[in-house]
């Protein structure tokens, strides 16, 4: 059976299981049922050869039972066959029914309500499994090419006792690679999509090879201190991740666990900085684990001011504020930083003297309440003198506050944005990504 046919069966089986759950629960019980699954190809490369290659077929059903103000949930495997999947879930449901009376009352329990339904199918065309090595590796022979090609089908489902139903599926690929030179200096390339395009791959490799030639110049050692810095979109995306880790979620703000408590207390970032959730172009379900559909756009920081935190319906109950249908974890799902006016050809002249950073690595809060982040420069990072790239740099540690980077230190943002796909594969392949411009910052602090 073709994968698309298997998916139609999976969608039907999911609906059948949701109906079965509804049929065995009495009227005092509520439930949500979610499905997450994938059929993925993973091929890993090192030195332009194949290190590991294989496939993963996985699926998980999660049933949440709510009864008498208490709740508990169970996850079981999903293979897309009712005769296999329903008995496992039914056994789990019986266990949940035993457990739920033992639990404390949950005062912030969100019961399913509404009548939202949606169905999104993003089809694509991918490389055949037996063509991956033979397609990707010939153009990179002679190069030290390393990375991973991940591709296939991702699907999500939602159903609940109120009758809400959602289905999302996406066929996609990502290629995340690095090219190294003999001195172990490297450049990074990442691209993703739903239709494999050979010319795009060749263009990416050509660009990366060109960047690598710039890396061949003798590296400049930079003394610790503060330098005017251009952060390319991939580097900005790394900083943007921090907004979802003790950042703009309402629960974190309420519980003293946010870097942006100072924004809520009246401080502001630069008027040039605007951050929003934007599902318009995101390859990402708009429904959350409560079956709620997020608004297409939601401004979060507008002209430097925090105008909306991400509020889940659970936080809405707890803190008595309106929900904006954020995810349970209140992280950004489709973030977009709005562009500025810096044109591509003005990046180096406007930087003039300082550092051009393509990528950042391994970020962590160094002073969370004050929004200070530490991390490393990585890949193609250069010293710029008189508006020209003069030398690659040895990797540097930075330690800088987001209040400076996107606040009083922000000089300008580029007038273009890049889409940085989420290519994480912890537990399962990621979906979506961020849309970000490059950023020019004054006095960015380097410490080691």
């Amino acid at each position: 059976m073709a994968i698309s046919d298997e998916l139609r069966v999976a969608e039907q089986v999911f609906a059948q299981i949701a109906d079965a759950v509804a049929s065995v629960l009495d009227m005092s019980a509520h439930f949500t049922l979610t499905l997450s699954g994938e059929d993925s190809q993973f091929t890993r490369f090192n030195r332009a050869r194949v290190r590991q290659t294989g496939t993963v077929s996985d699926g998980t059903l999660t049933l949440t039972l709510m009864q008498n103000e208490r709740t508990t949930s169970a996850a079981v495997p999903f293979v897309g066959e009712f005769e296999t999947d329903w008995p496992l879930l039914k056994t789990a449901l019986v266990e949940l029914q035993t457990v739920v009376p033992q639990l404390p009352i949950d005062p912030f329990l969100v019961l399913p309500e509404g009548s939202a339904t949606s169905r999104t199918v993003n089809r694509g065309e991918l490389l055949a499994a037996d063509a991956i090595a033979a397609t990707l590796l010939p153009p990179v022979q002679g190069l030290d090419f390393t990375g991973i090609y991940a591709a296939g089908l991702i699907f999500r489902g939602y159903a609940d006792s109120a009758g809400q139903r959602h289905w999302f599926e996406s066929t996609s690929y990502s290629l995340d690679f690095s090219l190294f030179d003999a001195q172990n200096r490297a450049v990074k390339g990442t691209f993703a999509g739903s239709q494999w395009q050979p010319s795009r791959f060749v263009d990416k490799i050509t660009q990366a090879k060109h960047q690598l030639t710039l890396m061949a110049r003798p590296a400049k050692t930079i003394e610790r201190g503060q330098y005017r810095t251009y952060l390319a979109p991939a580097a900005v995306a790394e900083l943007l991740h921090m907004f979802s880790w003790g950042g703009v979620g309402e629960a974190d703000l309420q519980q003293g666990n946010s870097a942006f408590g100072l924004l809520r207390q009246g401080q502001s970032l630069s008027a040039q900085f605007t951050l929003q959730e934007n599902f318009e172009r995101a390859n990402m379900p708009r429904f959350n684990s409560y079956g709620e559909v997020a608004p297409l756009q939601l401004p979060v920081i507008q002209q430097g001011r925090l105008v909306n935190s991400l509020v889940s319906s659970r936080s809405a109950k707890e803190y008595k504020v309106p929900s904006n249908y954020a995810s349970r974890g209140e992280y950004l799902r489709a973030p977009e930083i709005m562009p500025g006016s810096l044109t591509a050809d003005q990046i180096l002249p406007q930087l003039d003297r300082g550092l051009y950073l393509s990528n950042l690595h391994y970020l962590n809060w160094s002073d969370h309440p004050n929004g200070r982040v530490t991390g490393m420069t990585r890949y193609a990072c250069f010293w710029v003198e008189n508006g020209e790239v003069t030398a690659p740099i040895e990797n540097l540690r930075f330690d800088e506050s987001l209040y400076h980077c996107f606040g009083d230190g922000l000089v300008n943002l580029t007038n273009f944005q890049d889409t940085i796909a989420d290519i994480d594969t912890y537990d399962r392949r990621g979906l979506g990504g961020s849309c970000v411009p490059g950023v020019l910052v004054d006095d960015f602090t380097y410490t080691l």
Partner: protein
Amino acid sequence: MLKFLSDVVAAASIPADWIGIRAVKDRSRTCAIRDAHPERNTQHLDHGAMVEVLAHGQFGYSATNNLTQASLAAAMETAYAQAVAASDWSVHRFTTAARPKATGQYVSPHRKGLDALPPGELNQILLQVCDQLKVSDKIAQTTASARSHDIETWFVSSNGSEIYQRDYLIETHFGTIAQDGPTTQLRTDHGYLAQSYQGGWELFPGLDLWQRVQQVGEQAVELLHADNCPDLTATLVLAPDQMMLQIHESIGHPLELDRILGDERNYAGGSFIKLEDFGSLEYGSQLMNVTFDPTVVGELGSYGFDDVGTPATREYLIREGKLERGLGGLESQQRSQVPGVANSRASSWNRPAIDRMANINLEPGDLTFEQMIANIEHGIYMETNRSWSIDDQRHKFQFGCEYGKLIENGRLTRTLKNPNYRSVTPQFWHSLSQVGNASTWDVYGTPFCGKGEPNQLIRVGHGAPVCAFETIEMFGGAV
């Protein structure tokens, strides 16, 4: 299950040089409480099988959560096709020597089963933890959580391997955030889920739980009004709950052979260590003795066999400061010709095995904590990791802790908030000047070691004594 899987392998029709199946069944339960309200009560059954095939010198894999004979047979066909399609492009032509025959079993020692603490009782204990953490109206948030895992693994192969392993795991956490105006301070029970061990519910609640809860609450409030850690270069003393992170990031990861061979360069990074360094490099001071030891009872990364069937043994990685051995399984040992360990591990059935840490421990020295502090004129003692960042070669790092104490003239004096330090790995380990004895030794674990493409999180354990390092750059946060 072993017989079923062996029969599936025996019935295979593919002309492979080797076939293996590793099936995993993970039954887990999680309970989380925040501010004395239930946040999460979940149970999870996950199962599936990783089918691996060696053909033409290349491994191919296919993982499925459908455990029928037909599905596993189809997975073998897919894995074989994957291997053949890539075999003209192999990074190394592997032989069956990477998968020798092994038989045996391992079960985590435990006194109580994972059903011994019903969810209702567990919720009540965690609610009480949250209640008792609230030692003051300055406490803004309290959290307490516990997870149990019962993980069974069956491994069979076409050359006769039959291994059964069963891990019982208990992972617990509690912590609090204290707040006074814009100032907030986090204090936890040795770091997020650092109390992660193998065993049953005899591990929790332990005899000292309520004393620890009280101390964590009080120290969070104490930190609110403590002095900020000063900027200075002096002696740094690290408690075992920070040594865990220090060992993990600046010894464990750089010694992984797959990083050194380049597999990880596009994601987690490479290493400043070269293959030729093994057997000769002075990694740190002569006080430094580091072992790979998956045989420690109760430590989180213990096992009888790794995930390709290699029997697990204790080995010195660094002895008296000298680098002896790498963290690499049989595949990396074939490729590098460097001595390694039994550490080919996968996060679950749906990921292939790669070189991982297990338990990496720093062996104790001969000084008591009091003797160590008495030897220091000026320095800072730090506990519990709060922030971690290190470069892709595992060279330049910056780590932050939750709780600090100033050391003045051989005594612990004022409490310090926001203690951080930064250094470069070789210099740091060469500056190791004092190693505490067994009375200062503690074991912690983490379920969150991330690495690999596709990404994998795996469980590791780290045991260490209190250690002192000379001339380390330390600093605080914004005042």
